[in-house]
C-alpha cells in the first residue's frame, strides 16, 4: 500500500511533537519542579555534601538539560531516517 506523502508528513510531525512533550516535561520537572517548587521537601534529603533540592537548583538541572538535548538529537535523527526526511 503506497503511503500518501501528506499523511506521512502528518505522522512525522505528530511523533516529533510527542518527543518534544516528553523532553519538555522532564525539563520542567528538574528545574521548576525539583529546583523551585519542591525544593524544601527535597532539601531534607542529603546527597553527599549537598541538600538535594539545592543540588538540583545549582547543579543537577544543568546536567539534565545537557542530556535532554543529546537525547533529542538522537531521537530526531532516528525519526528523520525512519520517515525518510533526513538530509544527505
Amino acid at each position, binding site marked *: 500500500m503506497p503511503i500518501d506523502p501528506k499523511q506521512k508528513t502528518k505522522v512525522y510531525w505528530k511523533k516529533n511533537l510527542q518527543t518534544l512533550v516528553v523532553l519538555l516535561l522532564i525539563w520542567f520537572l528538574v528545574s521548576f519542579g525539583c*529546583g523551585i517548587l519542591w525544593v524544601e521537601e527535597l532539601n531534607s534529603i542529603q546527597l553527599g555534601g549537598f541538600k538535594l533540592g539545592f543540588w538540583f537548583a*545549582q547543579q543537577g538541572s544543568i546536567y539534565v538539560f545537557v542530556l*535532554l538535548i543529546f537525547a533529542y538529537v538522537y531521537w530526531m535523527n532516528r525519526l528523520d531516517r525512519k520517515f525518510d526526511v533526513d538530509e544527505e
Partner: protein
Amino acid sequence: MEILTWTYILVGLTFALYIGIAIWSRAGSTKEFYVAGGGVSPLANGMATAADWMSAASFISMAGLIAFAGYDGSVYLMGWTGGYVLLALLLAPYLRKFGKFTVPDFVGDRYYSNTARVVAVICALFISFVYVAGQMRGVGIVFSRYLEVPIEWGVVIGMIIVFFYAVLGGMKGITYTQVAQYCVLIFAYMVPAIFISMQLTGNPIPQLGFGGEVEAGVSLLDKLDGVLDDLGFAAYTDGRKSMTDMFMITLALMVGTAGLPHVIVRFFTVPRVKDARLSAGYALVFIAILYTTAPAVAAFGIYNAINSTSEKPVSELPTWVQTWQKTNLIQVDDKNGDGIVQYLPDPNQNELQIDKDIMVLASPEIAELPNWVVGLVAAGAMAAALSTAAGLLLVISTSVSRDLFKTFRPEITEKKELMIARIAAAGAVILAGYFGVNPPGFVAQVVAFAFGLAAASFFPVILLGIFSSRINKEGAISGMLVGLVFTLGYITYFKFISPELNTAKYWWFGVSPEGIGSIGMILNFIVCVVVSRFTPAPPASIQEMIEEIRIPRGAGKAIDH
C-alpha cells in the same frame, strides 16, 4: 615576573591571536558576512555560541552574585542554561531550515508583513544595544584594573580590536575568533577554580568539591550555612525570594535566552538542520562547564572571604585584602574602633564591604597562585567581553543593512549591501564605545529589559510561527506589541518612575521587574492566538512554507536572497 608584566604578555598574545584570525577569515560576500557562508561545523559553532553567550557579566560577576544570593542565585544558573533546551527543541532546527539570515527575516517572511519585520528589528536593536554597552564597559574595567590604564583608554583599545574582526570578518571572522576566545576564557576560569577547590576540600573537581568537606565530617555548605547563621545572615542554601518570584524570574531568563537574536543567529551558520540540533547540544556542554563551576566558585569565595576577614584584627588582614582595597572592591571600615573586622547584616554596624566581582577577579590571589594566573584571568575576562560584544555588533549591523536597507531598497547590489553592513558595524562599535566611556546610569538596570523584552516579544511569535499555521500577521503584530508595551511599562514604572515602590508588596502577583517578562510572554501568546482567531487565516503560500520548515530534508545551503 611581576603581575603587570604577565598580564601585558597574556592579554597581548590573545589580542594578536584574535587579529590574526580576523585577517585570515575576511568575509568576501554578504553570506559570509551574515552567516559565515553557512559552513561552520557543529562543534565550532557550539564553542562560538558559548563564547558569544557568556559575557563579561557571566565571567566576572555571576559567581559573586551567587555568593551573596545563595540559593536565590539559582535563577541565573537554571535560567541561562535551561533556555538552550527551548532553543534546541523548539526554535533552532526550524529556523535553520527556514534558511535566511536574521530573526526579523523570519518574522517578516512568516507573517508576510514589513510592519512585523520593523517591529522585530526595533526589538533586536534595542536588546543588542543594551547588552553591548555593558560589554564595552566590562572591557574598560578589566583594562583599568589589571593593566593600570584609564577606563577610557581600555574601552578605546577594546573598540579597535572588535572593529578589526567584526567589521572586516563579519560572522566568519567572529565565529573563528569566538572559538579561540572560548578556549581562553574557559581555561582562565577553570585554573583558579580547580586550585581553590583543592585547597579547601582536597578535591580537584570544583563541581564535587562544592559538596566536599572542609573539616572532618562537616561539608562546605553546612559549614557555610552555620557561619552565615552565626553572623545573623540567612543560610546559604535557603532562599529569600518568594517561590512565585523564583519561578517567574527563572522562566523569563530561560525564555529570554531562547529569544535573544545574537544567540539565535548563530544557528544559521551550520550546514544542516541536524547540525543545528547537535550544535545546540555542544553549546550547552561548553556553557555548562562554566555554569556548574560558578556556583562552586561562589561558595568557595564567600567562605574564604568571611573566614579570612570576619573577627580578624584589621592590622592582620591577608595581603589580597590590602591589594584589592586600593580598587575599592573591598572596603574595611572599623566603625566601632575595636581593631577587629565585624561582618554583619546591619549596614550601620557592618565593617566589611565586598564587591561581587572580587570572587572571580581576586580568586588567584586568594588561592595564592602564581602571578601568571592573574594575567590569565584578565585575558579570560577580556575574551568573554569581546566575544559577546562582537556577536551583538553583528546583529546590529545586519539589522541595519539587511532588515532595513535591503527590505526597503531591494535593488542595491551585494557589494553595496556588504559595504552598508560594514559601515553599520563600524557605527555600532563607535556608539557602543561611547556608552562604554560614558555609561548611562541605567546600564545595570536595563539588563532586565533585554531578557524581559526578548521573552515577551520574540519567543512567542517565533514559536507560534513554527508550531501553528493559523497564526496570522494581525495576531503576531498585536501580540508582540502587547508583550513589549506591558513589559516595558512594568519595568519602567518600578525601575525609573517609582523605584521606591519596587518591593514585593507592590508587585503584581508578587512578580518582580526581573521576572515580569514571563507575564509579558503569556500575554503575547494569548493576544496572538485570540486575534488570529478573529482575523483571516494566512495565505496558502505561508501554509506551504510552514509545512516546508517542519521537514529537515532539503535545507541545503542558506538561501541567498
